[in-house]
């Protein structure tokens, strides 16, 4: 990690050894630019970069590249997400060139939720390449300056390459190896799935540290504050690969009427505090789902402000 690979703000923050803090923003279900700008505004200065989701949960929204460019114009650094579900290798490579040309410098490579979950379950899925191959492809385009077929690229895209890791999906024993494989394929940073089961995450990160993975890649711990008991039970039962312990649901229930959201934030703050000192964790990825306006308060209370200027 000697020279800058992309020159993105996120890369510079991490390279300088700061505890990174990233946010997330889902594009609108429409071309409502004003609405998007309203969601972006509270994130400015509060986080180092903001993930722009790509048809998340397989629901059609404004394209992640377009929303990312709007975010750039608004003075917030995007972390452009791309899933393998909706594009073949031609579209993937042309979109990578496109986003780089528009000034985007971070990219998160994902498989994508199956279309079964979304609002067009009848659609064909592409999966021409998988997320691992996507990571390797972005690295090849950046470091070798070639397309997947080996042809030279006229001005290669220099992107900071992100990948996701879900420590809570099965088979648990394999998860750290899959993380290692993503790092080997070219991931510069990792953002984990939302963490609620802290004990299991401690085990996971310890194995990653034992394997030296944290020295090859920056690992950002995923945090999503629970807004309600309903959200917690939904996540526990309905969202694939999510591990929400009963103890947390009980804790939220015990908070009493009107105080659940505050209890959810309190839990998130406790998590962030622990992550700050946890070996192997280089930052936090805050996914405040449809709660962008609460991010300044959470960032303030988490003691991560002001964000470093590097």
């Amino acid at each position, binding site marked *: 990690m000697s020279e800058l690979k992309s020159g993105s703000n996120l890369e510079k923050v991490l390279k300088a050894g700061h505890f990174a803090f990233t946010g997330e923003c889902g594009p609108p279900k429409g071309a409502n630019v004003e609405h998007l700008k309203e969601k972006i505004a509270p994130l400015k200065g509060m986080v180092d970069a903001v993930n722009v989701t790509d048809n998340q949960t397989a629901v059609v929204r404004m394209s992640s590249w377009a929303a990312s460019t709007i975010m750039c114009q608004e003075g917030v650094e995007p972390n452009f997400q791309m899933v*393998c*579900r909706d594009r073949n*290798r031609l579209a993937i490579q042309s979109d990578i060139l496109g986003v780089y040309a528009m000034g985007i410098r971070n990219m998160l490579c994902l*498989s*994508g*939720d*199956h279309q*079964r*979950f979304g609002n067009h379950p009848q659609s064909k*899925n592409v*999966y*021409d*390449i*998988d*997320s*691992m*191959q996507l990571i*390797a*492809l972005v690295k090849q385009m950046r470091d070798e300056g070639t397309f*997947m077929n080996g042809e030279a690229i006229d001005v290669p895209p220099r992107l900071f390459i992100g990948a*996701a*890791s*879900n420590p809570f*999906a*099965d*088979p648990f*024993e*394999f998860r750290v*190896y*899959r993380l*290692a*494989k993503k790092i*080997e*394929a070219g991931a510069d940073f990792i953002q984990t*799935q939302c963490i609620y089961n802290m004990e299991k995450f401690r085990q996971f990160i310890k194995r990653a540290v034992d394997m030296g993975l944290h020295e090859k890649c920056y690992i950002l711990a995923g945090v999503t504050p629970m807004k309600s008991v309903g959200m917690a039970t939904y996540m526990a039962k309905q969202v*694939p*690969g999510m591990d929400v312990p009963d103890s947390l649901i009980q804790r939220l229930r015990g908070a009493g009427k009107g105080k659940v959201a505050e209890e959810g934030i309190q839990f998130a703050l406790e998590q962030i505090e622990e992550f700050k000192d946890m070996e192997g964790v280089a930052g936090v990825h805050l996914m405040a789902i449809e709660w962008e306006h609460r991010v300044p308060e959470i960032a303030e209370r988490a003691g991560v402000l002001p964000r470093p200027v590097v």
Partner: protein
Amino acid sequence: MIVADRKPLKEILEMLKGYNRILVVGCKGCVSVCNVGGSKEVGILASILKIAGKKNGLNLKVDEKTLERQCDPEYVDLLKDMVDDYDVILSMACGVGPQFLSERYPESRCLPAVNTTFFGGAVQHGVWSERCAGCGTCVIHFFDGMCPIARCSKSLLNGPCGGSADGKCEISKDVDCIWDMIVRKKMEQGRLDDLLKFMPAKDWTTARDGGPRKSVREELVQ
């Protein structure tokens, strides 16, 4: 084998509207084995059609014939003295059948009575499960005899996605996560290293993506 399901009766009746002389043609190949289009099922469908006709005040002529296979011209040829007696030929073979019939008998109307679903096998009596996607370049030797192309909902080649839970796929608890099975078998047999290798992007030219396919065996071509 090629697995199929019979089309809903309503759809078949809709297709047959206006035809009074119907020849139901079965196939003794795959569709017989998966109990959808053999002589027994041909008999059942023919009876149902006659009853449905009577209900509608029609005296339908419905006859039955089951060929050795519908994917070989020599067997399809056996219908040549019969087809002119019918308004329509209803094939109970996989999607190959009605096409071979149409090609051989261009003057006849040939309709499909089944939906062809996948390449698979019987996992228990009455239950068939997909095993192969016919991608044209088999990779199951890398995965201990299990195919993630056909059996992973995302056709992933580099391990299970984040939606794998309790051995099941994220799309449904009725779908096994093939990656869970692959990982467990490799672990049990001490060959996990196999899965740590990067599997490069697949060449799909041999799959349907490369266009309609043809297999030519020069030594057999006359």
